[in-house]
């Protein structure tokens, strides 16, 4: 009787522990972006001097966008 209960207990606890251990094999902060290998959305921004800049003007160049804090 006690053995049966012991096995049932183990059957409940073991998968939970396994799942938590599984967590170590992955990087929680790594989330695949759905945008990779897709075309960038067109945009236009206002510059500090009042001028405009569109993404389309930069066609052919590598563009680095930095979303900064302010």
């Amino acid at each position, binding site marked *: 009787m006690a053995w049966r*209960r012991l096995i049932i207990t183990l059957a409940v606890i073991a998968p939970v522990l396994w*799942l938590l251990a599984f967590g170590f094999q992955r990087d929680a902060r790594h989330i695949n972006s759905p945008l990779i290998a897709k075309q960038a959305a067109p945009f236009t921004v206002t510059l500090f001097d009042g001028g405009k800049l569109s993404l389309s003007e930069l066609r052919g160049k590598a563009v680095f966008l930095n979303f900064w804090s*302010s």
Partner: protein
Amino acid sequence: MTATIGHSSILLAFVIALAGSVIPILVPRGANERYVTFARWGILGQFILVFLAGSALIYGLVMTDFSIRYVVFNTTRATPIYYRITGLWGALEGSLLLWEWILIIFSGIVAWVYRDRHREMMPWVLMVFCIISAFFLGVIAFVSNPFEIVSPVPPDGRGLNPLLEDANMMSHPPLLYTGFVGLAVPYAFAMAALIVGKLDDAWIVTTRRWTITAWFFLTMGNLVGAYWSYHVLGWGGYWAWDPVENAAFMPWLPATAFLHSVQVQERRGMLKVWNLSLIIIAFGLTIFGTFLTRSGILSSIHAFSSGPVGIVFLCFLAFVLLCSFGLLAYRSEHLKGQPELDSMVSRESAFLLNNIVLVSALFTIFLGTIFPLISEAVAGVQVSVGAPYFNSVTVPLFLLLVFLMGVGPMIAWRKASWDNLKRNFLWPAAGSLIFALGLFVWTVRDFWPLLGFTLLAFVAFTILYDTALALRARRRIAGEGIVSGLITLARRNQRRYGGLVVHLGVVLIILGIAGSMTYSREREATLALKDHLTVGPYLIQFEGLKESRQPTHNLVQGSFRVFRGTQDLGILSPALKFFPSQQSPIGRAVYQSSLSEDIYLILSGFSELDKNQATLKVLVRPLVVWMWVGGFIILLGTLVSILPFREKDRGSKMED
């Protein structure tokens, strides 16, 4: 020098704790008496050594001894003295030391208080404490050492995370840890009862006050955390269902269930296995919480650096769960033969239902918290669930719990008669229906808020009505007035009236949550000088920006004049703080509270060129203040139920 004293104290304490964990298994059955003496000295030794180590770390922090790595990362020369001290729990290594420190204080008190009682169980109780203590000391000594030396000694430290520089930093972590550690006391007694095979309710009666105390600290730790979030983090919320918040909240659920279900065991001898399981789960969840915070397996704003600590905690969690439940399964034969429910309409079934609801809430929150792991293990994609899941699943459960909170304390044990039901619930139910009608006629038309407020009113009415009846009886019997009658009632039955006061506190907290969840309003706008924004009855006018240099950061303050209708509420100045060590600015939200609602201002941006524009977010949050009031009521209720001011000691069994 400081580091050497600290680290060698920890090592020595670790050796003592290990000895204390192993010896009771080795000594022959009859030698218990000698072991208890040894274990008591062992606990005292650990107590002194951990005290020494903790003091050494605080000394290092206060004296800014930058030869210790931990000090470098948690203070600077400019840090005020009180934040240097709180640096003790500013990061992983120190907070483990604090945990161990609280644990050994609790163990010490237990060893001392029960020095002449429970001769059979005490060796095992102390052994369980030694095992837990040995684990923490081992982690502190070998895995995450707060006394690690750094060389060359840097000229200044890096300092605490600026968000931790707040008065709540002094209370929130120690309160929460005290709650976590407090659960170790009933857990240790439960394990001792299982080992000895003494499975009556002795362990429950003995640890009753300890459990209430632990529950109180756990409640306060969570509530102060919520207040901190509301007060400092500047998003206008107090709870985000972040994995680590859930980790702090989850032990509260089985602990609350346990507080109620042990009464059923004391009264009726039922639910023995259930109670043992609940306390194992509650204690296991405190370890799980630390594992979750420290392992980095889930992404969270609270997650600390990952490292080997996570794996060590997981191993300990596995050890605790397997040993405890294994022992429970082994003893299950002795736990049989319990009486059955006499009727579904009785206090024990109300408590049973309350337990089922609490455990269901625990299950859903646990599931939601580890869902990213499940989805990745099963489907290979990471999916996380957020506030919408948690709210939609837990709100109905918690409302059911509120209803039971009204029924449970008033309904009769065994089998409630029709008279009992009529006497206790007729008027409160009628009162709350009238209240609901009033709310409906006023403005509250949505189903969930209406149901929530009505149930809260029902609980409050049952408590007030029951107390009024008891007071009337006191007047008839002894001619006592309201105040002296209340004092007599509370002294005669501390546990009941303390519990009812705590229930009132919980009602107020849920009132605050319900109000702010359902009737909040918010708006965000960019304002030029003298522009204004209206939210509900409020009008907020932008009066200008001000920049100033503070000792640790640059401060940009916006001035906003707030009107409610025609009434001028004065200037509120939300700000952004720019710390040289931080990439993004840290907001300082400001709010003004009233009993009916808070107005909460967040400066989310400003024009850097001419400083004549500001982006402002305004939140109106109804009834939030009642959450904090509820906290104080819970404090009061806890004091009523545990302080030893009964008229005379009537033995350990109190009547209900």
